[in-house]
């Protein structure tokens, strides 16, 4: 399965994965992040119920220093 994450195309060997599984895989567990999938914000409580599909585009964001 191929997913675009923050503008980068990533390939995964599995063909089924939830957002929660992806978050764990990417070492983002416990980090304060927000996720948008194909332009829709996915609530944190929905990560484990949201299945990713081939060609999904994710934005994973956090808070950084800014003025």
């Amino acid at each position, binding site marked *: 399965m191929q997913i675009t*994450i*923050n*503008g*980068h195309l990533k390939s995964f060997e599995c063909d089924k994965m939830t957002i929660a599984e992806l978050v764990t895989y*990417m*070492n*983002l567990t416990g*980090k*304060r*992040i*927000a*996720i*948008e999938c194909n*332009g829709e*914000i996915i*609530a*944190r409580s929905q990560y484990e119920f949201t299945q990713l599909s081939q060609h999904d585009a994710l*934005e*994973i*964001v*956090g*808070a*950084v*220093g*800014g*003025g």
Partner: protein
Amino acid sequence: MKVLQMNDELKIAGKNYQSRLLVGTGKYRDFAETRAAIDASGAQIVTVAIRRTNIGQHANEPSLLDFLPLEEFTYLPNTAGCYSAEEAVRTLRLARELLDGHKLVKLEVLGDPNTLYPNVIETIAAAKTLVQEGFDVMVYTSDDPIIAKQLEEIGCCAVMPLASLIRSGMGILNPWNLQIIIENAKIPVLVDAGVGCASDAAIAMELGCAGVLMNTAIASAKNPVLMASAMKKAIEAGRESFLAGRMPKKLYSASPSSPTTGMISGA
């Protein structure tokens, strides 16, 4: 005799703050310096940007949140770098999810990458959407009094005209416009952008601004922590000066401060 007015707090979107200085968290050498400067500034509201997370490589890298815990500060997520209403709204929806439903946001929509001058047409469009969606919108704008009033009428909780261009450090270039905006507003007016040194901040407060938001003036000073401390004092001094009410200006005065009678003879 009480010198300071009690309960002179900044009220934004129903919440009171003792500090009238709001600061950005960008452009510091490291997070330790960010924290030290913000402590010296006394700021309670800090702006943050929303950006793509660094994926994979640095899982245990320290983050801004480790140094500025959410329990200690009011985060003000911004839309820095957005050039359209759509981008700005999308960014702040993500910020709301990121910060557990947090509603207080700073809207800025830029119009030009060289000057960073705001695009007020896109700003107004974004403000309408955000207010409808329940955000408490502190809005960065030009120093146009008509636009400032329109942003208030849309339902923004604070209007933040520029003193001069972002990162210019040119100070307050049009105090007259700021004065008109302040006189017309029923919501807090904060100067955002252009402040270069402590006297600029004091002048903004003496004009009657409810507060000042700054980043570069502190972060780009030779000694950011010392400048943060100077800014804290300038904001407080300017506020007290405004509340005290200045003496009228006169070209000259025929009445000196010391008594004219009782002079020693023969002097």
